[in-house]
């Protein structure tokens, strides 16, 4: 690790270097290849990554018979587009309406992101900067629990929700509070925890220790350091992880199938049912997939500036 540069303490002002000829590592690396090759390679990757999705987008506007009968690229030589698929997907009234499921998805996702991130940030801070007995063992255990596949936990968790010990109120079943929303939020919090703590811990460790030490010397307590120094520095990293957690919860099907009652089923549950009784309507799925894509994509584009500022950039440059 000797080659790893120790980041300059953030308090130290950056020495004003010559502004000309200043370049980033990546730019310098890129110059090694000719810039033509570089843009060629990135273009190829972008194209390969987008093409399959593009095919689906085209298919979602094709009539059923054609979507099932020939390749989507035929739409260019023999253009025949329709909004029928979208109309059918967006149609339906009352409880069957897509809007109901959209609301459910939102209601599930927001606490499903907030709760685990808050808890994980607190825990990650403690694992990174507090000293207590058994810290390392607990952290490794937490990290290792990432491996438990969700399927393994479904039945034991559901049993706990339906018949909790100590006569606690059941969170699942006919009398579940809020139609089973609490079990969904709780489950998403549980499943997110190990990875969230692992990632946030790693980002926090990148923050220079001197910063914490000097604050301690000045008499600041952990709560103060956490709220006044750590949270502002970590904001980009937390936001970035928040986006990932948002995507995972939004796109989750498994947890929703097991823990959500019919009242609060999210969009993904509606989506898999779009294919029809025996999978005959998969042409509708293409439209449905794009409808469900809209919100996560908006969240990503809206919060992308955090990615540009960077997960670590905040911590290093203060």
């Amino acid at each position, binding site marked *: 690790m000797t080659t790893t540069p120790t980041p300059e303490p953030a308090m130290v002002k950056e020495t004003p270097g010559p502004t000309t000829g200043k370049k980033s590592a990546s730019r310098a690396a890129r110059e090694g290849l000719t810039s033509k090759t570089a843009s060629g390679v990135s273009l190829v990757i972008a194209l390969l990554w987008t093409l399959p999705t593009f095919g689906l987008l085209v298919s979602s506007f094709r009539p059923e018979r054609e979507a099932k009968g020939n390749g989507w690229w035929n739409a260019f030589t023999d253009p025949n587009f329709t909004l029928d698929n979208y109309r059918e997907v967006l149609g339906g009234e009352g409880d069957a309406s897509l809007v109901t499921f959209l609301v459910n998805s939102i209601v599930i996702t927001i606490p499903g992101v907030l709760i685990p991130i808050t808890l994980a940030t607190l825990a990650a801070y403690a694992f990174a900067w507090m000293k207590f007995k058994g810290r390392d063992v607990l952290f490794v255990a937490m990290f290792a629990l990432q491996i438990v596949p969700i399927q393994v936990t479904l039945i034991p968790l559901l049993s706990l929700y339906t018949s909790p010990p100590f006569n606690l109120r059941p969170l699942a079943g006919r009398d579940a509070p809020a139609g089973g929303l609490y079990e969904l939020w709780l489950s998403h919090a549980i499943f997110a925890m190990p990875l969230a703590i692992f990632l946030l811990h790693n980002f926090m460790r990148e923050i220079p220790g001197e910063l914490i030490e000097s604050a301690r010397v000045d008499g600041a307590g952990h709560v103060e350091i956490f709220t006044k120094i750590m949270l502002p520095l970590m904001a980009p990293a937390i936001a970035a992880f928040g986006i990932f957690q948002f995507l995972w919860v939004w796109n989750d099907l498994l947890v929703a199938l097991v823990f959500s009652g019919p009242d609060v089923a999210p969009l993904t549950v509606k989506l898999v049912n779009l294919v*029809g009784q*025996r999978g005959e309507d998969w042409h509708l799925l293409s439209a449905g997939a794009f409808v469900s894509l809209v919100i996560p994509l908006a969240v990503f584009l809206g919060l992308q500036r955090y990615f540009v500022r960077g997960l670590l950039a905040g911590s290093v440059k203060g």
Partner: protein
Amino acid sequence: MRSRNIRHATIAAMAATGLVLAGCASDTSTSETNTAEGTSPGEGVEGCEDLTQFGDLSGTEVNVYTSIIEPESDAHKASYEKFTECTGAEVAYEGSNQFETQLIVRVRGGNAPDIAYVPQPGLLGTLVDTGSVVPAPEPTAENVDEFWGEDWKNYGSVDDTFYAAPLGANVKSFVWYSPKMFEKEGYEVPETWDEMLELSDEIAQKGDMKPWCAGIESGEGTGWVLTDWLEDALLRDVGPETYDQWVNHEIPFDDPQVVESLDRVGGILKNSDYVNGGHGDVNSIATTTFQDGGLPIIDGNCALHRQASFYAAQWPEGTDVSENGDVFAFYLPVTNEDNGRPVLGGGEFTVAFDDRPEVQAFQTYLSSDVWANEKAEATPGGGWVSANTGLDIELLGSPIDRLSAETFQDPEAVFRFDGSDLMPSAVGAGSFWKEMTSWITGDDSEDALQNIEESWPN
């Protein structure tokens, strides 16, 4: 696990005597019948005559969990309206196409629905083992005795206790074809297996299309289409009694007779002159989805496709599914005249996880001829049929449904349930699917069947 608090104080565990209809001494045990007191809201209302026996169920709710999703579920919900109107009990419906795995999770997690529609009698056994299934009440059993054959009742029973009444049904022994194309080319619907092969040869020689098309890909269930093929062939070759022995593992899974029947299937599906019209070579059967399997018929790339009555839903909108239309089905011909006209089929069963009066009332309602006819009327577009003999065939919405119902009610027909649905899950939802997939892609019949035999749980 039956400790759910029963909220109605008025429940009187009435002895079944008051409700027993004459004459049907049932040999299987049932659940105690719980009936609500009070005057039924349906008293005196026209059309409710058969539903007043359930008493006043106002303010109660029955939740139902099924594999039937939109748009098919709409007709189901509509068919419960009469029940709600006449008894006052609401029905909360939930359908999911992940039903089979989710039901296991919910039952084992202690969150079972009141009633589930289970499509595999084999799964019923597993559910009964968890201890959370309650036996059917006496009135349900009586309905089943009255409207269904004994075989259907047995499929809903485990160890002489009757749990689950049959609901919908489907015919698997169908071959889809294009009546218009047949007429144009002068082909005739074959009456025997050999005639069917002669017809296949004729089509193959003509050369504009392969005679057969098939697809068995179905996610985790990949291979089930071939288990149906084998069962249909075996049922025709050896007759219903031996078929039952095979399903119950009283003869080895790889008995020489079974090998013979599988080779008979191979004579069609592994014959590269015959398959796979519109899709590719023999191997393409393995990777073509079952939904796409028969579609080449409408494009004129394939002539024959063996698939159940529910394949009707796969034809694109605008396809004329009728006797002289774009597509229709004929009965898969027999191989051996001595074995009558066996019909392979499947269906759902109503399994109850609670014995509150409204749950029992609903289960009984679903097993009645009243419901069957309500359901038929609620499904004018077709796509549903039942083996309930009280069902009025004229009410069914589509020609293929009427053909299915006629097949069920045909006195000469011998019905047998899809064997893989009756076998232990390790076989019926495991090795049988897997090995049939390996078989179509190259394994020989003996090896494939022997592997399944070895996987049978002790």
